[in-house]
């Protein structure tokens, strides 16, 4: 599992690196951010908040699973709901950006916004499927002390996506500022 997360981490690190290099690189003579660039959508603040809350509920589920408590399934369910809410909020952010004239084929500033958020959202959606499976299994009383691998792996993956999102958000914000 660590290997898997390491692989994904390299993907995100490379993407952020590409963003930074293009942002400050020699090719960028005033192209970016474009003079009339809109600020980042406000909805991102909400989605960040949702993700942090889901991270906490995921942690509670993990602890509950280790102790073999019945509440594991409930906490997993809350996390799952948060995950859906996060994806929905990201879509809101996209439509907000589109209304503010951020058009993906127009300039690199808009392009990176959509590509980076989409890359992260794809990994969130990819995580929802195994999380749903684990939630169902938890409801069936599958996990207990010493046999909580499924919940543990979900938690690792979720913490990872949370950290990645914070890094991405910071990068996007930094990219949207005029220095």
């Amino acid at each position, binding site marked *: 599992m660590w*290997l898997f997360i390491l*692989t994904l981490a390299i993907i995100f690190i490379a*993407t952020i690196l*590409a963003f930074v*290099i*293009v942002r400050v690189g020699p090719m960028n003579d005033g192209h970016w951010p474009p003079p009339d660039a809109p600020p980042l959508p406000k909805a991102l603040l909400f989605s960040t908040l949702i993700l942090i809350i889901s991270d906490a509920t995921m942690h509670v589920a993990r602890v509950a699973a280790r102790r073999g408590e019945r509440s594991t399934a409930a906490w997993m369910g809350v996390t799952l709901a948060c995950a859906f809410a996060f994806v929905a909020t990201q879509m809101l952010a996209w439509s907000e950006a589109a209304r503010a004239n951020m058009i993906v084929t127009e300039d*690199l500033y808009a*392009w990176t916004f959509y590509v980076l958020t989409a890359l992260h959202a794809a990994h969130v959606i990819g995580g929802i499927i195994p999380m749903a499976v684990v939630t169902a299994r938890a409801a069936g009383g599958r996990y207990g002390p010493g046999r909580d691998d499924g919940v543990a792996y979900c938690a690792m993956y979720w913490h990872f996506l949370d950290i990645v999102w914070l890094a991405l958000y910071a990068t996007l914000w930094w990219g949207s500022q005029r220095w």
Partner: protein
Amino acid sequence: MTTLDASRPTHLNIEASSDNYLTHTRGLLSWAFTLDHKRIGVMYMFAILGSFFVGGVFALLVRTKLLFPDAVNWMTAEQYNQAFTLHGAVMVFLVIVPSIPAALGNFILPIMLGAKDVAFPRLNLASFWLWIFGAIFVVISLLAGSFDTGWTFYTPYSTRTTLGGVVWVITGVFILGFSSIFTGMNFIVTIHKLRPPGMTWFRMPLFLWALYSTALIQVLATPVLAITLALVAIERVFHIGVFDPAMGGDPVLFQHFFWFYSHPAVYIMILPGMGIISEIIAVHSHRHIFGYRFIAFSSIAIAFFSFLVWGHHMFVSGQSGLMGAVFSLITFSVAIPSAIKVFNWLATLYKGSISLNTPMLYGLAFLFLFTIGGLTGLHLGTLNTDIHLHDTYFVVAHFHYVMMGSALIAMVGGLHHWWPKMFGRMYSEALGKLGCVLVFVGFNVTFFTQFMLGSHGMPRRYYLYQPEFQIYHVISTCGSYIMALGFIITGICLLKSLFSGKPAPANPWGGRSLEWQCPSPPPHDNFPTTPRVGDCYDFSIVRWDDSAGGYVVDRSLDPELNPNAPKRAGAHH
């Protein structure tokens, strides 16, 4: 110790064990959904050899065109661009990168560990099917209009070319990348968790050290290729992206990312080859491998350095002089672990009782070709000579010596080494050796000429050229025909053995590691119980046994496996 080899006539008839992995279950579906690492390895092998044939045909088309300096009516310049691109892309992504780990590694690694399978058999099957899907996408790209970007997909050309196959092939390579990552993860976990009792890290066969280092690179470098290609594909769809200079993007960034994967990828290709050579040389000279720890550590050292040298592909891309010098210096440091390996192999050969079997011939061919390939790499890693040699045929010759002359020759050598184990049949030594000699001669005729071409200034990838270069091109093309003949004979030799080959003993060459201590072909579960192991290069307990028709490893003589074993003089420890 006897130096006879198993191809000597024996009056004994060895009956192939009736229940083995080939006969365990029957039917096409029992193969398509098998979780048996041996079957997955065999399927990989035939798929990869099929791709090798396709890539080879494109190579012959390119070489045949180059017989003439002018345009030829049967191949336009556009078709020529597509042919060399396809040759490169197929050979790199479908053949050489997966060849040794996915085909031979899958088959041999768990058996060498005395395990029943890899750690995650389902993931292993998924890797195989990802490979198949990747290959399907490459085929679709041909139908969708092909591509002519060169196998490197350099931007901005790859984002601008009008041919319709680019996004398809990029998707294909993206999928193949994940196939490679999953194989790597599987091997790392398998080696960590499933080593048998007695096999400490420094008791592992060197092939496993090589696969382990390779797996590390696969897991760490391939994601960068994946995201880079994804960004190129997105850029082609939206006509804007981070590699597009018109919008403030940086096309050289692509080169950095691409080579951050593709230089380590060279070691994904060569490291497992080196592992095979360590096995072949030790087994066929019946001598304890010299400098075990040096060879093991040099694999790890090569894997580590491989991440720090990508800039040597970009000396003329406008990177700063200081960066060029730093990359050049680090590149030289890769020569040290490589040379350590070569010296240790030579030291193993020295005073060994060498059996010149077909695998050993390939091993010796490797030593010769890898030395040339490695040493010419120094010319290219040196800043000032590279500026002259960059993008000439010298580069083409160099990387063919390394990727084909070394990695692929090692793969074919390993194929011959483990073929009796995989299928329980011996091939004809005479045909095998003839194939090997033809490939070796043809290879050198083809590519040594290209060193001369390149140093005289012939650029790579050109459709037309000055008539003064023609003689070299004609010689080179003749060499490629000899090589093709050699591969055809090799193919016939191996295929023929499946139908009329003599049944193979469990241990035809005098091997010592675990795969030679189970029947050929191995049973479904490899070993009934996980065996204990001692020093896997201690050949003093391997002896010829007429009743077995091959060698046997006499475990009762190993003091580590049997406390009552008699003390022997001259045993290596």
